[in-house]
């Protein structure tokens, strides 16, 4: 079995099953939560019991507006900006977007969104974070 290099561009994030126009980086953070328990049988040595986990995604990119023909396939910085302001729940897919590849899917809230734009003839940037809603996250394989 030959090891497969998974290059950065392959790992991406979709919101509502749509590609994010201008997306440059996507990140995933899973933080397991533990409860410290000390039972009589532990003889004075506490143990950490797994409770659940929090999953967060981050994204950043350049301010490129989607084409009018891309409204069904793409989100862009302006549609995400609007979604962030309404606190709406969005579905997400994180991972490699190809059949047979492992993915993380679920529902999330946009917990953070920001934009930066300078005065030169360069594209602006946007970035944000999603926090997955507990019990909606599924680790699956794309069919």
């Amino acid at each position, binding site marked *: 079995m030959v090891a497969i290099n998974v290059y950065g*561009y392959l790992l991406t994030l979709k919101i509502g099953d749509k*590609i994010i126009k201008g997306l440059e980086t996507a990140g995933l953070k899973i933080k397991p939560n533990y409860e410290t328990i000390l039972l009589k049988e532990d003889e004075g040595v506490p143990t950490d019991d797994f409770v659940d986990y929090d999953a967060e995604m981050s994204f950043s990119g*350049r301010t490129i507006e989607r084409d009018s023909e891309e409204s069904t396939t793409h989100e862009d910085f302006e549609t995400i900006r609007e979604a962030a302001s309404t606190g709406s729940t969005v579905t997400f897919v994180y991972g490699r977007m190809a059949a047979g590849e492992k993915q993380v899917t679920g529902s999330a809230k946009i917990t953070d969104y920001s934009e930066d734009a300078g005065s030169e*003839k360069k594209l602006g940037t946007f970035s944000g974070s999603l926090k997955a809603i507990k019990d909606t996250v599924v680790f699956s394989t794309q069919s």
Partner: protein
Amino acid sequence: MISEAIQEALEEVIPNTYQTIGDEEITLPYCIHEERDTVERVKDGIAFYTWRVEIAIIHSTPDAAESLATQVISALEALEGETSHGTDIETVEYVGSEPGFDMNTREYLKLLNFEINTKNR
């Protein structure tokens, strides 16, 4: 290609315009330009190309070189939003200039720097 588009625009101002290197028998004033590109990638693929363009204007007096520099800046800025030689030019940004003087030839240099974003190469 962006080089042809720039060559055409510069020749309107300075007929003796060359890409990368000049002719040995060149007469004043003359101009040399060079372009280097960087690919700007997003997850979707290539978003655009950024070209760092250097234009050297050589003339017998600093005032004459400066006058040509002003015309060259206008000529290049006029390319913004145009399609020239198959290249879609989105933005043209004049970044700045540097003066120079060659003691041996007694020629004055005006080096102009631009950043140009194009949709394609």
